[in-house]
């Protein structure tokens, strides 16, 4: 049985390998927990945190903070990590307490490892100045300080607004005659790429078929009516990204996100 030191060192190497594999696959930086799960699902927290301090890892990569939920990246990608919405979301979540849901950029940066603090604060200032904060984050001026917060923590008196249903949507802008074959082809290709599980996200389908939304929704509605495709709700354990929410079709209080060929 390897000693603790050996286990941490071995894990450090594996973490770098997984990070390398994830670098091209995932647009968002992975969390340390994600990396560890893929590298060694049995590693405990102590070993993981010890591993990221090892030269084998820290010589090439960094974690935003000694925390399993913190995002990680290669040192070469430090600037991208500093500017990423994932890091901002992490910093906000990390700084959030039951009695305080907002923080200044200066306070947020202190939640991060030293190497990241300066580039993070600079990137955040740019986002604030250019109005390019992620859609889930807002800021407000209070006593001349800019306080950032997650919009989910904003309390208002408004009711939530549901997107319009397909029937209420604007009329199609272009003909639908070519939609069905295009949809079938795109579905077949995307399904094949994803392992042929007959389960394709509308995010991918909308990307592959750049029809105006009303045309896409009406075309898909027709395919469902003809019994050729079925939709199912987005109910994975991993929550929904903004892109998924945007692509889904609301129906009966659920967001339908995945298309499947109809079973006989």
């Amino acid at each position, binding site marked *: *049985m390897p000693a603790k030191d050996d286990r941490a060192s071995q894990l450090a190497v594996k973490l770098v390998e997984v990070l390398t594999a994830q670098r091209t696959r995932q647009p968002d930086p992975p969390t340390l927990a*994600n990396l560890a*799960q*893929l590298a060694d*699902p*049995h590693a*405990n927290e102590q070993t993981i945190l010890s591993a990221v301090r090892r030269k084998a890892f820290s010589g090439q990569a960094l974690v935003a903070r000694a925390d399993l*939920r913190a995002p990680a990246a290669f040192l070469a990608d430090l600037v991208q990590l500093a500017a990423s919405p994932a890091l901002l979301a992490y910093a906000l979540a990390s700084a959030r307490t039951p009695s305080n849901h907002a923080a200044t950029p200066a306070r947020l940066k202190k939640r991060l490892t030293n190497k990241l603090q300066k580039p993070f604060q600079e990137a955040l200032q740019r986002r604030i100045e250019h109005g390019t904060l992620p859609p889930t984050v807002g800021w407000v001026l209070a006593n001349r300080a800019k306080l950032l917060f997650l919009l989910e923590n904003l309390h208002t008196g408004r*009711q*939530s607004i549901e997107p319009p249903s397909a*029937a209420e949507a604007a009329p199609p802008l272009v003909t639908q005659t070519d939609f069905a074959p295009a949809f079938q082809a795109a579905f077949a290709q995307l399904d094949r790429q*994803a*392992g042929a*599980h*007959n*389960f394709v996200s509308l995010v991918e389908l909308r990307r592959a078929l750049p029809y105006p939304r009303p045309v896409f929704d009406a075309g898909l*509605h027709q395919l*469902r*009516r003809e019994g050729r495709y*079925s*939709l*199912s*709700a*987005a*109910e*994975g*354990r*991993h929550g929904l990204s903004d892109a998924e929410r945007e692509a889904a079709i609301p129906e*009966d*209080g*659920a967001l339908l*996100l*995945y298309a*499947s060929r*109809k*079973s*006989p």
Partner: protein
Amino acid sequence: MTAPSDAGDLGAFFARVAEANPFTDNRVNGPSETDVDVDQVHQAAFDRLVDLAREAWQEARGLGAVLWGEAGVGKSHVLSRLARWAKQDRHAVFVYLHNLQASPENLPRSVLKAVVSILTEGRVRHFHPTPLYRILNATVAHALERYQPGPPSWPRAEAAYSQLLDDLSAAPSRASLVDRTVYDVLFHLFRSEYEMRAGREDGQAARWAVRWLSGDALDPAEARALGLTRIDGAERPVALTDSQQVKQVLVALTQLAWFRKQPFVLAFDQVDNLETGQFAALARFVEALIDSSPNLLVVTSGVQATLIDWLGAKVIQSSAWDRVAQFEVRLQRVTPAEAGHILSARLDRFFAPFRTLDDVAARRHQDPLFPLGTSWLEAVLRDKIEVRPRDALNWAREAWRREQETLRQDGGLAWLANWAPAPAAADRPSQPLTDEQVAPVIDARVEQKLAEHRTARLKHPETLPPDAANVAGLVQALLAEYAPDGSRLLVVQQPHPSRRGRKRTYNLVVRRRGNPGAEDARAGLLFLVTPSAQSTTRALGRLLEDPNPPARVLLVTDERQPLHLAEKGEQDHRELLDRGPERFRHLVLPFARYAELDALRATVGEARSGDLEIELPGGKCRQVTEAEVVACHHRRGRYGGAAVVADVLDALGHGKVQETGRLSTSLTG
């Protein structure tokens, strides 16, 4: 011919309509003989699974199928139908497992324990009415008929059984999969039980055999009686050595079922609510099991989006997935017509006791969907292309409730006399609820689900056998929910000690971080569920010999498996008790409390799978999240009131434990 209705009969009918809603249950918690089922709904998926089960038997091979779809689409209903099919005319041996809690390394053993418990119907003696005995009986009968025809005798049966095993091992590819030790113990079980029924012995060997087959340790004398010895020859407890031998027992059981011409179907429901490490371990084990079994269909059921996410994230290796999900059976939303059939079936069941009431029969003749009304259904489904069965049940529940209101307002006779098919009522405005308003709704729903899960386990205790690994997993998970990230409570699972063959002293060590400069408070938990006196003595000895014991040690046993103490064990136990309740406590977990622990986790798992919903004012439903269930458990003090968990928190002086928290019986000196 129907009888004329009288006021008395109608009174019972009106009371039933007013009090009960046939659409309240919108999910099943496990296989049931009394489900309201509609054959044509998901028939293709069900037929596919039946075909695969038959193929597993006909081709004498192992097959894996994944049954997936979104929450509320009917996966558990299909498994329940499969269970009924298996039972009907003894088509198959069917084992349904869900809410597995053991840690990844203990999962195979925990699965075996649950399988054997279900096949022996939770019995500790008198096994002859159980499925396990029946498949053994069929195997021995087959062997006798084939190899030793003529008047049966034990020598002939033994010889025939041995020849059968020779034949099974003859194919080079199968030789390593026929573990003679396992088959010999199975034969001991059969013989001992058979002889006990004939009044010629006490059936003790059968009991030992079942224990060993379940993964429990036997004392050396017990093991010798079954012909079992340790490889190292040591005079120590004998148990299945590793996951490989655990697998070999399951492989043998599927082989025995083959001789009874029954496919062996093993169903894992709601796997998407497992932790990823658990699922990875389960998939690896199932892959090996499928590869080795001569007559097995494993059905793995869960939410497709989660399973595909895990596949993409390599939680499960492609090779394992290819075997576990060799056949994909997808459940999709049903057509509006099928949704109508589901509602009709519920109404048929509801009205069955009242079919002789003329006035009621007349209404049903007028409109088969009375009191919802065919026009109501048409209006509800008019624009629908496909429907989630659970949604259809929710809409019907709300419509029924409206009828209940009318009945209460107008009185039963007026309601029945004036009833007319009505179009669907417009949705009542759905008022958004504040956190304060929604909490009691969630609390009531979770309370109801807890009661359902608890009742199901109490009705079928064999589905939750005494199992140290499972209780340890439950307690660990509940403590993690009680004290999430950032809390001062830290749960640490004891790693395997480095010395080869040396068992761990504790299943869990729970540490409460102290203030800076202060020492952490530690509690060590040992879950001891074994009928082996020697194993018990060794475990207690490890507690006594621990050079650096936690300040508090909790020994947890299951009331169904009392501590079996020989002289030395008695002495050690006494010595531990003499340390005083501040340092050592022995907790006996009553089964009802165990079922409560299980229910606490099951409700969290249901929320994870998207299977837990609340109804908002106006009749709309929304899912309850995992975090909301955990918050509900906190709000209602359920963690502080849960058996063992409460004792751990108390031992660490963590928070105020409610008085109801002492739910495990504590044995003191």
